[in-house]
Structures are given as structure tokens and as C-alpha cells.
């Protein structure tokens, strides 16, 4: 080989240049990665090791009108898992199943939730029992991605008593996650699932906190604390309602163990809902964080339908409680006043065309005035009054009284009341010649094609109780919204009230419900029911009649006669007006 020193020196120089050049190239590559692109890689490194563990926020406390708690938060535990992959999650869940009870369905659902946000811990048990937590704590080392943390849990101290309006909370469903109103929500979070909890979700849900845990490459939690500053969860301000929880408890208690139906109690001027109940109720606490299929099945199969809200969803013929609407329409039209007599006296019924229309009292009421007809609930009188008004005007009047509307109460899932808009409705229903004017007779006594919710009837009666303006029912304190329903002068209004006062007197159908010292005005109703379980009993009224502080609408399913409903209503009215927290009547009712 050529080993002359000159040659060697030349090659050595080449070698040095190549060596130094290679090292410089390497160093510049490292400069680019470590200095120029440092931020980008530092972020990647953080993303690798830090996992955000959401800290569930407490929900806003719900208070009644006197600052008593309707819904609060109690300490609970949630169990979630950080998993590096779907398969690993599934395997861990199966292993968890050996310590605690996790069904196959739950595993599948958990895996589905995981896929929405794999870097977030997936909630396995939103509301773990103390037993489950202690079992898991024991086996903690076997489940490296396991996160057990305290999570505020919704609690309703009055349980079943608030089931008609409070709703409950539960984990957000997959369907809800896709809905625009839940934008920003993440799988595993708790949301309101009905009632106030749903209606005021945006005000009740708090701001989730974030805790950072450090995980290793296999997703095992290596450091629980101190990886980065925790952002605490924040509770929203409380929600104040118009509910009077003491009255609410009483309203619930009147139903006993056997009665079923709906009731709404309102302040007539402002529309403040003082109490609302659907009997029988259910325990919303057992729904929080997921209802057991056993309890749910029991409720679902109960023939008394506890899950069906009879105060805002149930629709029933208003029966004689509607006679005040018929009366008001007639008075507005100038067709009748309180002392107007009809052509035919009541003999227990009347012939119209080829049909005999019965009065509820087959003994008959004789020749009565409108005032007496209201007090006695004389059907024959109202048949004739309805005919005088005429179908078109009766329908138009009902529509203007909001008989085809929702009351507008601030609860989800309220049903709209139903009332025909015009005679064309009957053409569509029965065909142009398939019906007769007899529908007018039925309508005028609140039967027929007329279905009202309890809450909508309560709303109508707030107009009767005041100056003709109906107040929108409101559970949460807002600005009262009133709408003029009745265009009657003060004298006419007073006359209607006098007639309704007679109802709850010895002269009327609900005489047994009168209370010493509190004049109650109202109207009973007995709605025919196609089933053989008996008629539905209605009472809608207010008190004190001369200066109303409370409107109560109650419908007792299969309650047979309105007077039974009136007795329940009068207990509510009596309790409310005599209770120390209730507003004291401004004028002393002497008789």
C-alpha cells in the first residue's frame, strides 16, 4: 500500500474533515430538534405523561322560597380508569369484575365512552358505594390506571315529595352528548335528567376542575399529586325557587297511599308555584347516578304510573271546572250575567234533538240563575248557555282563554292542553255531516274534545282569582309574566267569584270543604272516564276569595266526584293560609 507520509497526511486530512463534518452535521440536527423545536417536543412530552383527571363540580343547591334545601350535594365516590388502549381497558374491566359487580353491558358501554376521549379517565362507577370503594382500595396496586375520587352526589332530602318537579341527575347519555345544547360536555359528566335539574341545567352545573396525574407509557398512574397545579372545581350560585317546601310536604301527604293524581298550588298574582305534585311519586335519589333496573321496572310496571307526571303531562277533560270558562265567555259576549235564567228549568236533563242530555243530579235543579248554576254545577243550565253562545264563539272563547296551550311552567316535558280551534275541527274528525251541534252541549260542561292539564287549569284560575290576568306558573323566581285572559269588568269578576264562593258553601257542590274563617272560591268537576275505574275528580279554586293568596288545581284520578278533590284542596289551602310562613290575608275574612 502507499504509505508515504505525504499520502498518509493527505488521507488523514480528508478523514479529519469527514469526521468533524459528520459530528457538526449531527450537532446541528440536535440543535434543530432541541433548541429550534424545543417547545413542540416539550409539549408532546407533557402530553405523554400528564393526564387530566376531571374533578366533578358540585351542582348548584336548590332552595325553596324560605331558604330550605330542596336539592344539595353529599360526598360520594366515583371510580374511573385511565387506560392506554381499548383492549387494555376491556381487560382491566373484566378483572375489576372479579372484585365488584360490573355487568357485561356496563363493560361495553364503558368501552364505548372511552373511545370518545381515550386520554380522559373513563367513568366506571359514577356513584360507587362505600363497600365497592374499600374493596377497590384494597386491590389498588393491581389496577394501575384506577382513579378513585370523591365526587359530589346529588341528594334530595325530601325524596319522593319533590319528584314531580325536581328531576334527578345522571351521567350524560351518548345521545345527549351529540345534542347541540350539551356542547362542551364530556362523557362521564353528570347532567340534569328532568325537572328543574334539566330545565336549569345551565345554571345548576358547576365548573369542572382538573387534576393532573402522571402516567407512564403503559397508562399506569405513577404520581397522583403535584404533577401540575390542580384547578379546583367550582359550584355555581344556588337556585332559589318559589316552592314552599312545608306546603309541598303537606301537598304530598294528602294523597295518602292510595290516591293518585296531580296538584298545582300557585300564587295567583305572580304565578309563583308554591307546590306541585304528581301522586304517586318516586324517589329521585334512587335515580341519581343511574337507576337500578329493578327499581325502574317496578315504577314502570306500577299501574298507578308514578313516572307519568299527572300535574303537567296528564290530560283530562276539565269537566265542570270548565263551566267558569263557559260563563266567562258568555259574560264577555254579553249573553248572560249572574242572574240570567235559561229557557228550560233543570229537571234532571233536557232533550236536544233526538238525544236526552242528563244533568249530573237527576233530581234536577229547577229554574236557576247563572250564579246558582255554578254553585250547583247544573249541567242543563250550561247546555243552554253553550247553545246560546254558539259553537264558533265557544271555541274561539276557549282558544282565547289558552285552553289549547301549555301553561308555560318552567319544567321540561309539559304537555299542551287540547281544545278545538274552530268547527272545522269536527269536520275533519267526523266528516262534514258526521256531527251535530250536540258537541256544543258537551263542550259547555267541559266534556268532549277538551283535554286540560292540571297546571293549565291552575293558570286559568289565576285569571279568575285576580283581575282577569293569568300568571305564567313559575317554579324558579323570575319576573312574573301575566297575560290578560278575561275581558270582564271588576263587577263581573266579583260576580264570578261570588258564584264560585257559593260552590264551597252549604249551597254548593263542595260545601263539605269549607273552612272556618277562610272563604274559598272554586269549582268542582267530575270528568267522565271511559275506563270502568271511576270518574276523575277535579277541583280548582282559590282563597281567600276576596283577596286570593293561593290557587289550587287538583285532579284525583278515579276520584269519583269533584267534592272529594275539593276536600283535599281545602286541606292545602287551610294549611297554607294558617301557616306562619304564609302571607297573612290583608283583609280579615269574617264570614
Amino acid at each position, binding site marked *: 500500500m502507499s504509505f508515504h507520509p505525504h499520502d498518509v*497526511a493527505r488521507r488523514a486530512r480528508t478523514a479529519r474533515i469527514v*469526521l468533524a463534518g459528520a459530528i457538526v452535521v449531527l450537532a446541528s440536527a*440536535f440543535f434543530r430538534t*432541541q433548541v429550534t423545536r*424545543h417547545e413542540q*417536543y416539550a409539549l*408532546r412530552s407533557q402530553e405523554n*405523561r400528564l393526564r387530566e383527571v376531571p374533578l366533578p363540580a358540585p351542582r348548584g343547591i336548590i332552595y325553596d322560597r324560605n331558604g330550605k334545601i330542596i336539592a344539595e350535594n353529599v360526598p360520594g365516590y366515583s371510580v374511573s380508569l385511565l387506560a392506554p388502549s381499548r383492549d387494555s381497558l376491556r381487560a382491566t374491566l373484566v378483572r375489576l369484575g372479579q372484585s365488584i359487580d360490573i355487568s357485561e353491558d356496563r363493560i361495553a358501554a364503558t368501552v364505548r365512552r372511552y373511545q370518545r376521549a381515550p386520554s380522559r379517565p373513563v367513568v366506571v362507577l359514577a356513584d360507587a358505594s362505600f363497600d365497592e370503594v374499600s374493596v377497590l382500595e384494597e386491590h389498588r396496586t393491581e389496577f394501575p390506571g384506577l382513579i378513585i375520587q370523591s365526587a359530589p352526589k346529588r341528594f334530595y332530602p325530601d325524596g319522593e315529595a319533590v319528584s314531580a318537579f325536581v328531576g334527578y341527575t345522571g351521567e350524560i347519555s351518548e345521545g345527549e352528548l351529540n345534542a347541540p345544547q350539551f356542547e362542551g360536555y364530556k362523557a362521564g359528566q353528570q347532567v340534569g335528567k328532568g325537572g328543574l335539574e334539566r330545565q336549569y341545567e345551565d345554571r345548576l352545573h358547576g365548573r369542572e376542575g382538573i387534576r393532573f396525574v*402522571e402516567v407512564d*407509557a403503559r397508562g399506569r398512574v405513577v404520581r397522583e399529586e403535584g404533577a401540575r397545579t390542580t384547578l379546583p372545581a367550582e359550584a355555581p350560585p344556588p337556585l332559589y325557587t318559589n316552592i314552599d317546601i312545608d306546603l309541598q310536604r303537606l301537598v304530598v301527604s294528602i294523597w295518602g297511599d292510595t290516591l293518585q293524581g296531580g296538584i298545582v298550588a300557585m300564587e295567583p298574582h305572580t304565578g309563583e308555584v308554591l307546590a306541585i305534585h304528581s301522586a304517586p311519586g318516586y324517589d329521585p335519589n334512587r335515580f341519581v347516578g343511574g337507576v337500578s333496573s329493578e327499581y325502574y321496572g317496578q315504577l314502570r310496571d306500577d299501574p298507578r304510573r308514578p313516572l307519568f307526571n299527572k300535574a303537567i303531562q296528564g290530560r283530562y277533560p276539565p269537566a265542570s271546572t270548565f263551566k267558569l270558562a263557559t260563563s266567562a265567555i258568555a259574560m264577555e259576549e254579553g249573553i248572560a250575567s249572574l242572574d240570567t235564567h235559561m229557557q228550560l228549568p233543570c229537571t234532571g236533563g233536557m232533550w236536544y234533538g233526538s238525544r236526552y242530555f242528563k244533568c249530573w243530579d237527576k233530581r234536577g235543579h229547577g229554574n236557576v240563575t247563572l250564579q246558582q248554576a255554578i254553585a250547583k254545577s247544573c249541567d242543563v243550565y250550561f247546555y243552554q248557555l253553550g247553545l246560546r253562545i254558539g259553537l264558533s264563539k265557544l271555541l274561539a272563547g276557549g282558544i282565547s282563554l289558552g285552553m289549547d296551550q301549555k301553561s308555560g311552567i318552567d319544567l321540561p316535558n309539559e304537555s299542551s292542553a287540547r281544545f278545538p280551534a274552530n268547527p272545522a275541527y269536527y269536520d275533519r274528525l267526523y266528516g262534514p255531516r258526521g256531527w251535530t251541534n250536540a258537541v256544543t252541549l258537551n263542550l259547555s260542561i267541559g266534556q268532549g274534545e277538551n283535554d286540560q292539564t292540571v297546571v293549565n287549569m291552575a293558570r286559568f284560575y289565576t285569571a279568575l282569582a285576580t283581575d282577569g290576568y293569568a300568571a305564567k306558573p313559575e317554579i324558579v323566581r323570575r319576573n312574573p309574566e301575566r297575560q290578560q285572559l278575561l275581558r270582564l269588568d271588576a263587577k263581573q269578576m266579583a260576580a264570578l267569584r261570588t258564584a264560585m264562593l257559593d260552590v264551597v258553601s252549604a249551597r254548593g257542590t263542595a260545601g263539605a270543604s269549607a273552612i272556618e274563617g277562610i272563604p274559598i272560591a272554586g269549582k268542582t268537576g267530575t270528568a267522565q272516564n271511559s275506563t270502568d275505574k271511576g270518574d276523575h275528580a277535579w277541583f280548582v279554586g282559590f282563597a281567600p276569595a276576596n283577596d286570593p293568596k293561593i290557587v289550587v288545581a287538583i285532579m284525583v284520578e278515579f276520584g269519583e266526584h269533584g267534592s272529594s278533590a275539593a276536600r283535599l284542596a281545602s286541606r292545602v289551602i287551610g294549611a297554607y293560609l294558617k301557616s306562619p310562613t304564609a302571607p297573612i290575608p290583608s283583609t280579615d275574612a269574617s264570614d
Partner: protein
Amino acid sequence: MLRRTVEDTPLVIVALLLSCFGVAMVYSAGQTDVPSIVARLYRSQLMWLGLAIVVAWVVSRASVRMIEWAAWPAYLLTVALLLLTLVIGSGAGTAASSKSWLTIGGMRIGQPSELAKITVVLMLARVLAARREAPKSLLELWKPALIVAVPWLLIMAQPDLGTGIVFIGIFFAMLFWAGVPWPLLLLVASPAVSLVLSFSTGLWGAWFIILLLLVFHYRPYLVEGVVLVLANVAMGVVAPLLWERLAPYQQRRLLVFLDPQMDPRASGYHVIQSQVAIGSGGWFGNGFTEGTQKRLAFLPEQHTDFIWAVVGEELGFIGVTVALTLFLALFLRAVRVAQRANEPFSSLVAFGLLASWFVHVVQNVGMTLNLMPITGIPLPFFSYGGSFLLACWIGVGLLVRISSEGRGQPGALAI
């Protein structure tokens, strides 16, 4: 009369600094949040370092003549061990399916390929030094080529692609140092270039024109020229077939080299995590033992193949630069030794050892930033592993000896 046993103090100091740096990194590599066996490995690495320095000292006492004499038997022994490894070898770590470890009774004795790196250098130096003139034609290269090809093929059969690359590097570097003209080197390398470029017809066509110009310029014998051109054509044809022959993991490694994001969870994972670790180090690093990529096991093979990423993550660009500077110092010192050696054999041995280290460093360090495809070759003086550290220090011992016998400096102990 007492003589200094170490003549090339700077070389030894640089090697010692690199080794201490390396052991420190092996220690840090063991500092993970989930404790593993790696936590204790630095102790055995320290013991190996002690042993390696002793062996290096012993080697430095042996005269170059004796080493030259021992080249043949050592080479034959190496080939025999490589053959034996193919029969009874076992894999380890990331390359569990390959057979690179010589295992007897379940005990891993060592990797004969480490030994081969030294013996091939010695043997190649012997063959090249025996000639008066540097090889000028392809035909004259058959002997050196055969010397490298035998162990190379045995190692590729394990298969160990990374070590195979080291041998190619050694081969070309030593031919260069022996004075083989660069056009000839290029011609020798041309079939390999064809192999790589054949995946793109356009690139291969361009390369073929360059090759023809080169052949025309260099004017080899007619037969050689024809053989070369045919070899290039053949490579272009067999390349797709060879690709089919590669194991799926080897194919993935090469594809991932082209685009790590192709498969970020599996094949590309290593190199992506390595880049993240290095990039997050910034100027000064996250602090010794504090690298989170390493601590939390995002970084694979953090004590062996990817120990350099730990340097990058924990000591930052400064640490990387210091280490690279130490390596450069070692290389330049080795060039000096090769240049000053008083006869061709020693000079070639020195340069061959340098080439071996250089290929290791460029390959391993480059791999951590995806500048090189991932091959499981370790970083000299850093990566955990006894036989490799030993081999590195044997190299240091040889260099010290060659240095001390170099121009104007009598041997430390002439036998």
C-alpha cells in the same frame, strides 16, 4: 528501568471520560418511576468497565507484532464462533428472534460479532498491509473483500443488519486508508447504490449514467467493467425480490425510517418517543435522572440502543454537544495514531478501529433523531453491555500500543 505504561495520555483520558459519562447515563437510565432490573445495571457496567480497563492495559502490553501474528488464529476463531452462534445462538432484548448471542446452558456468554469487529480489522489490516501498492483494480480486491464477506454473511444470517453495516463501514474506511482511489471505492459500492435506488426507476437510471461515466473515466479492465455494469443491473432486478425476502419487522423499520408517523403506535413509536425525549431536553435538559420520557418508560431501550436519547433529554443540547465533542476528540486522536504509526499494519488497525467506532456513533446517534434507520447497534462507551464495553476498551488498548510504538516512540515493552 521503569517506563511509562501509557504513552497516549489524551486518548486514555478521552476514553475514560466517555466511559464515566456512559456509566452515569446507564445509572440514570435505571432511575425510572416503575423500578426495573435496569436500576441495578450500572453496578455491573462499572464492574465491566474495571475489567475492560485491565484487559486494555494487558492488550497495550502486547507488541503489534504479536497482535499481527495473532490476527489469523483470532479471525478463524471468530468465524468458528459465528458459525456456532448460528447453531446455538439466542436473541435478546428487542431482537429476541435473532441469534446474536452465544448461549451455553442458558447463560449468555457474549456476542461473537463484537469480537468479529476487532478481528476483521486486524485481518483486513494484515491483508492490506501485505501489499506494496494499494489495490488498483477490482480483481485485486478479492482478498480483502473475502475477509470481510465471510463474517459479514454470517452476521447478516443472524440476522443483525446494524452490525453488518459496521463491517461495510470498516471495509470501505480501511480501503480508503490503504490508498485505494475513490473512484474504485465508488465502483465497488455501486451495486449497493443500485440496490437502494432501484426502487425508483428514474433515480436508478440517473445513477446508471453516472456509473457508466465513472467506468469510462476509471478505465478498469474490460471484464471488470462488464461485471460491474452487470452487477448493477442484477441488483436493480433483485432488489424487489430481496425486499420480499426481508422479515416484516425489517421492512417496517425501513418504511418507518422514511416516515415515522406511518405507524406511530407500533414501529414508529421508538423513534418518535426518542425524538420527543431529545427535543424536550432543550438547551440544558430536564436534569440528570429527571427525564420524564425515560422515567415513565415512554423511551424504549433507554439503557442500550436509545441511551443517547437519555443524554438529550436530561442534559440537553449542552450535554449532547459535550458528548459529541468527546467522541470527535477520540476520533481525531485515533486519526493521529493512525497517521503516526510506524508501519502500515498498525496504521490500518488504528484506522479500522476508528471506522468501527465512527459508524457506531453516527448510526446510533443518528437513529435517535431518525437520521438513520433503526438498527440495534449500541453506542460505544455508553450503551449498557459488557462485551461491547470490553471490545471498545480492547480497541483503546490497541490504539495505545500502536501510539506508543508510533513514529519516534519506542514500544512500551518490546518483546
